[in-house]
């Protein structure tokens, strides 16, 4: 488990990429050659924390954890060298994401610097800049499409029947996914996590499945085994597995 100081850290990170960049820097890792197993292990600890802290971005951390697991699993597969074709390192995409994010993170500190520089200056805004106001109500400075949206939304809320909110269709729930995993474990005693993830197209299902596993781990419905470096997660029935 992670210490208290880690807790404080986590809220400072802007998301999973930010956290990964931190881990890479802290452990002086080579971004060209990220030791996926090691970083995944560290990362998972933070994911647990993100959930505990009910961080807004917990879902994004879970998704990244799933991505790391996928990379890890793919690195295990024997490389089938077909002719002269270069086989891409499964980590390349992650590396590119990290570098791309880093560019903008760096730029954002330049923005913070510009902000700091401009803060003390106040623009002159004339007290009554419009010669004759058309009526007594305030004149909006500069109308944007966003203002029109906001206004319409406001009007609907106030002058009409309450709008029925279009709730996003729930594709799958946590308990459904727990049931699904239980079903799979009934029929086969061992499940590969990487294979499991390959089945799912939707980001939401991946996330929910991952959470289901964590939930089942906590209730000891599953056991998760990992034989050290570069290993896939293997799920099997836990001591409290319900038939």
């Amino acid at each position, binding site marked *: 488990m992670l210490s208290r100081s880690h807790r404080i850290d986590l809220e400072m990170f802007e998301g999973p990429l930010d956290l990964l960049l931190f881990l890479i820097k802290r452990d002086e890792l080579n971004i060209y050659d990220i030791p996926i197993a090691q970083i995944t292990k560290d990362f998972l600890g933070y994911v647990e924390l993100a959930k505990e802290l*009910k961080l807004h971005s917990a879902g994004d951390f*879970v998704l990244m954890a799933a991505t790391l697991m996928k990379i890890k699993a793919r690195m295990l597969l024997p490389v089938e060298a077909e002719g002269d074709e270069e086989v891409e390192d499964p980590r390349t995409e992650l590396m590119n994401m990290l570098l791309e994010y880093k560019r903008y993170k760096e730029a954002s500190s330049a923005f913070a610097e510009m902000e700091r520089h401009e803060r003390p200056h106040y623009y002159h*805004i004339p007290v009554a800049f419009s010669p004759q*106001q058309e009526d007594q109500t305030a004149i909006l400075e500069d*109308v944007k499409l966003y203002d029109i949206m906001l206004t319409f939304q406001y009007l609907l809320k106030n002058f009409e029947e309450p709008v029925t909110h279009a709730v996003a269709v729930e594709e799958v729930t946590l308990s459904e996914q727990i049931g699904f995993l239980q079903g799979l474990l009934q029929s086969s005693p061992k499940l590969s996590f990487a294979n499991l993830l390959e089945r799912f197209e939707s980001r939401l299902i991946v996330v*929910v499945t991952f959470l289901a596993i964590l939930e089942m781990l906590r209730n000891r419905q599953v056991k998760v085994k990992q034989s050290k470096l570069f290993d896939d997660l293997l799920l099997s029935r836990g001591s409290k597995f319900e038939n």
Partner: protein
Amino acid sequence: MIYFYPEGVNLKIDESKQIVEALLIASPEPLTEARFKAAMGEVKTKAPLKEIIDELQTEYESSNRSFFIKEVAGGFQIVTKAEYETYIKGLFTKSGKLRLSQAALETLAIVSYRQPVTRNDIEAIRGVSSDSSLRTLLDRKLLEIRGRDEGPGRALLYRTSSEFLQYFGLNSVKDLPKLREVEDILSEDQEELL
């Protein structure tokens, strides 16, 4: 002209004069004496506010500035001299920038999302008469009248103009942000994945 003050006093007056000026320039509303005092906090002015203002006033006059400090009911504010009004009006009428009252904005929002609509439709949602906002929006060419309602009254139908689309960089009315998208951005407690 050069005045000889005991050094300390001179500095103080000068400093507070500049602060008073900065406050006047930065404030979007007239400043009362109380608000000057509150903002200046520690700075003790050696002269009463009115004197400082007068001094600024004299400087503006002698250096031929086109603005002065006006005392209004609520306090002091910087305003332009009357002779420049014609140009300033030109700034607002010829600017191409959109400036609408809340009433006009509401009317525009309803027409954008519900077009074509009649005046009655608009007033039913807003709950108040919308004649003058409709007129403003027609004047500014943001709205146009297109045909009549099928209903018994054969009321005029309003819709947004092509200038409206152009101003907001839209290809067609269909490109307006959908209400669902608005809710996405606006929902405070976004649906958590957990």
